[in-house]
């Protein structure tokens, strides 16, 4: 747990970077520091591990005043990842990840094992990458190593300053989603600095929205979106908050679960009748174990043909845990009116329709309650 109490930072030249910031970040939560540049988000973050000295106020790490903890000890127990990554180019990937464990005096074998596990966690094959040098990696791979390094000595807290900021948008979205999955497993207390509201909404359990060194609103992403505290927040969120809400919802919360399905052995007549009865334009074809096999569209139905000949087996599918915005984007680009949704084991779980998305967004805007 991290608690900030009336934190102020005044630089020697008189600039007030942070003014009277107070809030607390709960154990295991990912808290996003969001705001335009110069709002004090990075300064606030760096005061937590004392890279920047506090002018006045107190920061408590698990209840202990952080100025009472030895500076290097404090930092070794808080993972640190930055936008520029700052990998040590003269060391291998493995050596980079092992730095903090080495500083903490872990044995060589323990360190190596930890590095291998972390590479695996970051979906980099340890055998292939552990002895490579940073100059041999792509931008996305470097970011992954940067995050792995921050997790090196298994700290309970992480400070991440735009950790996915320096890569192309596609890789960034991928890394965000992967990191969210990882966070569900590792449950670290994380401070995540960004100026990108989409990233904030997608990543954050809570968002601390800052402006000119002051905390404007500290709330869940939903409340920031739908219950902005003042005009600044509203302006920062933008007029398209309903669209941004797409980031907040997961496919499984919106999809129609247990929709009608068909089996490959069924006849065209039976399927046509079922489509009419259920009022749908397409049916998912599933196997005995509810494995997704393919999709049949009403326009494909022709008498005398077997289902397995008219269905499209390579139909686009999406996973249940994906963010709604990504699924919607796939629907728009593929032209599917009903997107089949599958689980991790490729079992058919449901379909996502435009109607369902519209309804969910409308409900969100209308009824999201203030916590």
């Amino acid at each position, binding site marked *: 747990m991290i608690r900030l109490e009336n934190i102020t930072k005044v630089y020697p030249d008189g600039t007030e970077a942070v003014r009277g910031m107070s809030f607390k970040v709960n154990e295991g939560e990912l808290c996003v520091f969001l705001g335009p540049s110069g709002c004090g988000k990075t300064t606030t973050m760096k005061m937590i591990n004392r890279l920047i000295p506090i002018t006045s106020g107190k920061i408590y790490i698990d209840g202990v005043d952080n100025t009472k903890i030895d500076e290097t*000890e*404090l930092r070794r127990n808080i993972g640190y990842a930055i936008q520029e990554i*700052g990998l040590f180019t003269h*060391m291998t990937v493995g050596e980079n990840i092992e730095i903090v464990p080495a*500083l903490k005096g872990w044995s060589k074998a323990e360190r190596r094992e930890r590095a291998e596990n972390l590479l695996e966690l970051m979906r980099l094959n340890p055998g292939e990458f552990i002895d490579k040098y940073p100059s041999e990696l792509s931008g996305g791979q470097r970011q992954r190593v940067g995050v792995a390094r921050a997790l090196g000595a298994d700290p309970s807290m992480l400070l991440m300053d735009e950790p996915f900021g320096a890569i192309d948008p596609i890789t960034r979205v991928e890394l965000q989603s992967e990191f969210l999955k990882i966070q569900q497993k590792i449950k670290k207390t994380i401070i995540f600095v960004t100026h990108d509201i989409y990233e904030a909404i997608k990543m954050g359990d809570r968002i601390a929205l800052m402006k000119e060194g002051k905390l404007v609103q500290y709330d869940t992403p939903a409340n920031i979106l739908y219950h902005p505290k003042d005009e600044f927040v509203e302006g920062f969120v933008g007029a398209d908050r309903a669209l941004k809400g797409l980031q907040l919802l997961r496919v499984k919360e919106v999809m129609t679960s247990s929709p009608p399905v068909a089996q490959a052995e069924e006849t065209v007549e039976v399927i046509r009748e079922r489509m009419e009865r259920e009022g749908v334009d397409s049916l998912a074809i599933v196997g005995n174990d509810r494995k997704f096999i393919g999709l049949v569209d009403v326009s494909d139905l022709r008498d005398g043909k077997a289902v397995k000949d008219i269905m499209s087996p390579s139909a686009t599918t999406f996973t249940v845990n994906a963010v709604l915005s990504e699924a919607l984007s796939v629907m728009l680009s593929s032209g599917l009116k009903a997107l089949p949704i599958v689980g991790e084991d490729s079992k058919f779980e449901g379909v996502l329709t435009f109607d369902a998305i519209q309804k969910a967004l409308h409900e969100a805007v209308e009824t999201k309650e203030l916590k």
Partner: protein
Amino acid sequence: MKRQVVLIVLLGSFVGLTIWITSIGQLGIYRTFTYGDILTYTKDHLWMVFWAVLIAIAIGVPLGTLITRPRFTKLIPPVLGVVNIGQSIPSLAIIAIMATLPCFWFLCFGFNPQTAIVALFIYGLLPILRNSYAAMRNIDLAVIEAARGMGMTRRQILRKIEFPLARPVIIAGIRISTVITVGTAELAVLVGGKGLGTITLTGVFTRQPLLILQGAAPTAALAISLGFMIVSIERWMTPRGLKVKA
């Protein structure tokens, strides 16, 4: 690669030239120097270069590093200024001026090898200091920031991060300095030093071009060999990560 071939050919020619002149034995009324003489003078030459460069490293690397530390950045203009001035005075002038200086505590100038070494050191300091300073200053700030954020102490950052990253450039400075010093050391004989300059100057005073070459050729060969040696050390010591190009 091409450069190496050229250097090897040059090295061969200089060694060959030395052997040829030495084997002539008699130049009119003068005798050429013997292999024994050349060996002795080469040793003296190396000895002066070794001490001059060693002192230049001992002072240049720490000083170049020190002035990149935040607390000492004020020292950058005076330090680089003084060293630059040292470099802009002709080597012959420095050596000559040094010989006229009196004793300072344990260090006596005048006509002796010490004077030559100090003069050579002053002349060899600049490349080492300038390269150390540039190498340290050009380290990516994000790297230092990451290291600090991970809980490395200043000393650990210097030893494990900054120095290994700066080392190739520092060694390059040492190489330049060594090659310059080997050349300048020819003049050391003027102030009581020894070395291959003895042969060259004998040739100058006796107006024997071949004698001049008998001193100059091994000096050139020495500069090339030392340069080679240091390049190899540089390659060997450079962390592989800094050599790999993506």
